[in-house]
């Protein structure tokens, strides 16, 4: 899986949480929680869904590295084999 495919997976999962968002509404380099008004529960569900799909768990200490769409995709790309 390359970074673009991972990005698509992340966007799909975000749209499950927030169905009112269109594909293009999701910014690449802004803080996801602030930009999309998703709360800490939604964010946890997002990480859990991605864990089930991609097999990578994000520890809480790494939350700072997955705050935007691009950074989150890069984080997973580095860890998926």
């Amino acid at each position, binding site marked *: 899986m390359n970074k673009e495919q991972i990005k698509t997976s992340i966007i799909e999962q975000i749209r499950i949480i927030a169905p009112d968002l269109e594909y293009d509404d999701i910014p690449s380099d802004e803080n996801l929680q602030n930009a999309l008004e998703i709360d800490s529960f939604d964010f946890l569900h997002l990480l859990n869904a991605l864990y089930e799909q991609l097999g990578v*768990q994000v520890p*809480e200490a790494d939350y700072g590295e997955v705050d935007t769409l691009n950074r989150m995709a890069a984080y997973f790309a580095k860890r998926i084999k």
Partner: protein
Amino acid sequence: MSEFLMPSLGADMESAVLMQWKVKVGDKVTKGQVIAEIETSKGVIEIEVFQDGIIEKILVEPETECRVGTPLAIIRSDEENIPVSSATAAQAQTEETPLEKAKPDRSKDTTQPQRVKASPAARKKARELGLDLADLAKTSDGEIHLSQIESAAETEFKTPSADKMRQAIASAMSLANAEIPHYYLSASINMSPALSWLEEINKNFTIKARILPAAMIIRAVVLALKEVPELNGYWQEGHHQVCKEIHPGIAIAIRKKGVITPALLGAKDMNLSRTMQALDDLIMRTRAGKLRGAELTQQSITITNLGDLGVENVYGVIYPPQVALIGLGKIIDTPWAQENKVTVQKVMKATLAGDHRATDGRTGALFLDKFNRILQNPKELL
């Protein structure tokens, strides 16, 4: 023999649509069992029966709008094995007839609407979006399909159900501001000890079992309320009643629609993990429009957390007949002086709005002090 009535889920509710029966005639039901789904301005709510018995008769068909207090079904208690007496049957009959008239006033100025032809998917979607099929039928020939509903929904950005919710909040809050003499107290709480403690715990958990700070804070509120129970209760008919159970109403935002504060029922008996699970479940069901009647009526205090949006101080308006509201702000890195040293700590402002008829500032101060102490010694939270 008794009647199962359309319940009132708040002073602002006048009527609701019976959507679906979960039981049929002859079914045995037990107290607390969900027997029907109704649709209100707060979404689809599961309603429970308050007695054991057998469903004797169903009086209202699905998709009927009924006023609060309308008999929906007749329930025979277990002991009554005798057949229905003619008197009771006659009574049931007479009470069945006014149902058509129980429709809300908006139908008054239009001719009795015929059932609009629409595909089942369209009907379902229209219901979800709060669109009136009859309105759509005026501009459409033949059966209404899903695509028409979707395009109508796009033009109608503000759905009627969002308006209804706004109205409900408006009437409750006007009453609160007019009647309740509020007092406000606030305290800065150093959250660093509790947050580091939680981080340690979460290291051993998979993502699914992780506990969020929001759940930990609610648990701390509940523990503090055990010590200062006066804030957990009601002001009714000139009297202050303390509630034995703790059912905090949690303010939950619904995307693009507003806020609902359903109760986290029985929070007193939940440990930290259970609080997290129950809260997560409550949030999911609130957003999916799947709450139970009791969750909309049993709140004994309100907790509102606007920290996600960067708000520091929350000065809330108490929801009557409750007597207090706890507002929680964003956790912010702040210079903090302790033992003659200034360090940077994670600090949260907790605010209490109290009903001065029921309690005094001293009670509120005791609560905030207890809340703070618990968070400084987080092991108590388990």
